[in-house]
């Protein structure tokens, strides 16, 4: 029995290594053969289906992911930190419980439903409000992604505010500080690392989101110059193209290479967030 429990215990490690091994196994022949690192990072031309001269430049896809995630964070970071401060420091009793449950329910809405909302509600709304021809663009996907990432960031940020010992607050209040002064000068500095980790995990979430971005971003390869441009994200490219490739073809392996790239980036983001959080515990 103990052996079984131990195997279960290390299963998470086995799976994460398994994920890396299997996507690398499928992507490696491309990485060692056709892959051109300069083309991958500097060319905006992703044309894997061209018959004569397929090109595999991921710059436009990276720009698409970055622009959508960037806008999402611009929307979500201030609001979710504000909400975390309200729920954690101002709200009391029933209000607090209700708000926490609401935030938790928001986090549960499936990403395909968010994508559908972008497609069927936000799209006509953006066309009407801003008088643009297409409503599936950076603005739409960024807004949707912001709403998706906010509940998670709020929850983690609120947890880290709650982790600040009450004795800190009492000490400051005893010195005559108002509640706002306590929050600004004592609680936020003490919870700083947790708040940074919350933002990082939000970025990771935005970066890896697939269905919502696929449906709401317009899915056209573009280096965006305004928030009304349609873009295409790394994740969405895999989701849209994998079904149409032959197993073992260059195109198929190129999509797995995008997967390796996504895996490594999110791994680094999660590792950084973990190290940042560990930083506070050490002190």
């Amino acid at each position, binding site marked *: 029995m103990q052996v079984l*429990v131990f195997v279960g215990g290390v299963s998470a490690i086995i*799976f*994460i290594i398994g994920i890396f091994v299997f996507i690398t196994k499928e992507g490696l022949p491309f990485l060692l053969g056709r892959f051109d690192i300069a083309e991958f990072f500097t060319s905006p031309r992703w044309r894997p289906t061209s018959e004569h001269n397929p090109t595999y430049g991921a710059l436009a896809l990276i720009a698409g992911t970055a622009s959508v995630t960037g806008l999402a964070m611009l929307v979500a970071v201030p609001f979710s930190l504000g909400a975390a401060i309200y729920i954690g420091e101002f709200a009391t009793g029933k209000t607090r419980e209700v*708000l926490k449950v609401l935030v938790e329910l928001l986090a549960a809405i499936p990403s395909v439903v968010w994508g559908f909302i972008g497609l069927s509600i936000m799209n006509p709304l953006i066309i009407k409000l801003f008088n643009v021809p297409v409503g599936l663009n950076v603005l739409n996907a960024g807004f949707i992604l912001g*709403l998706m990432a906010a509940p998670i960031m709020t929850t983690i940020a609120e947890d880290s505010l709650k982790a600040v010992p009450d004795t800190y607050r009492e000490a400051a209040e005893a010195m005559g500080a108002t509640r706002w002064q306590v929050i600004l000068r004592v609680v936020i500095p003490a919870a700083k690392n947790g708040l940074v980790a919350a933002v990082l995990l939000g970025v990771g979430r935005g970066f890896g989101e697939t269905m919502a971005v696929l449906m709401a971003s317009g899915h056209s390869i573009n280096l965006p110059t305004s928030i009304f441009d349609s873009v295409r994200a790394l994740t969405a490219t895999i989701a849209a193209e994998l079904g149409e490739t032959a197993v073992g073809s260059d195109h198929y392996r190129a999509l797995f290479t995008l997967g390796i790239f996504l895996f490594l980036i*999110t791994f680094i983001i999660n590792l950084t967030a973990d190290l940042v959080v560990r930083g506070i515990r050490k002190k």
Partner: protein
Amino acid sequence: MFEATELNIRNHKVERLWGLLFLLMTVLLILPVLVILGVLVYKGGPIISVDFLFTEPKDGMTAGGIFPALVGTIWLVAVALLASVPVGVAAALYLSEYAPDNWLTRMINLAIINLAGVPSIVHALFGVGAFVLFFRFGTSILAASLTLAIMTLPVVIVATRESLQAVPHAFREACWNMGASRWQTIRHVVLPNSISGILTGVILEVSRTAGETAPIMFTGAAFFLPFLPQSVFDQTMAMSLHLFVISTQVPGVPEAMPFGVALVLIGMVLAMNAVSIGFRMYLRGKKKW
């Protein structure tokens, strides 16, 4: 002597102002979502009927109901649970009852965070490479469910670990003092006292699994299948993929249909979550220690 000074009054005003600002931000965060849910109910509500839930799609998915997708989602979730609950509970038992504070435990925790953080489409690629091709399950419920199981494993582990750690240490010590082994203690004291907390985690996992789309797109979910799956080696339709397909891939779908599918999907997920949250609150209220 205790009259408010001018400074007191000003401080009080400033504080009220900040409180209101943060309240406003919280409301602005929640309000759009409530409006959106309202629109979903308004546009999708009228189409939902017993017929819609229990008949098959007709005329190239532009008419009829969602029965095969509903059944498919239940299959996918059930098989995924069978795979992930035992592994997840074992992992949580190890972390909570056995694991010393060493580098291996830190690695396990990091791996759990990463399993939860890896993009869903990367899980899909893994599912294709490992289950569909390497283990030769083909595109099947089995391959899709195992992919979902690995993706949602952190949900079970985290919830179970929390409920195991909520059992007071004194319970374990009392049991050890009676001469029970570590496993006997877990089997007869720790697990019975945390089973309802574990259940809460499982319900939460059901809701997460039911809504996922990307991991099942290439591993076992089909755009359209006129029949219900007979075994775990069949492909199946699924609610989440069905919503994607009829809202982006099929022309001529009446507007209310995707709204109806979205409403049923979100209803399932939110109901599961609400049950899980309610259950958790009930348990917290009932706790004897």
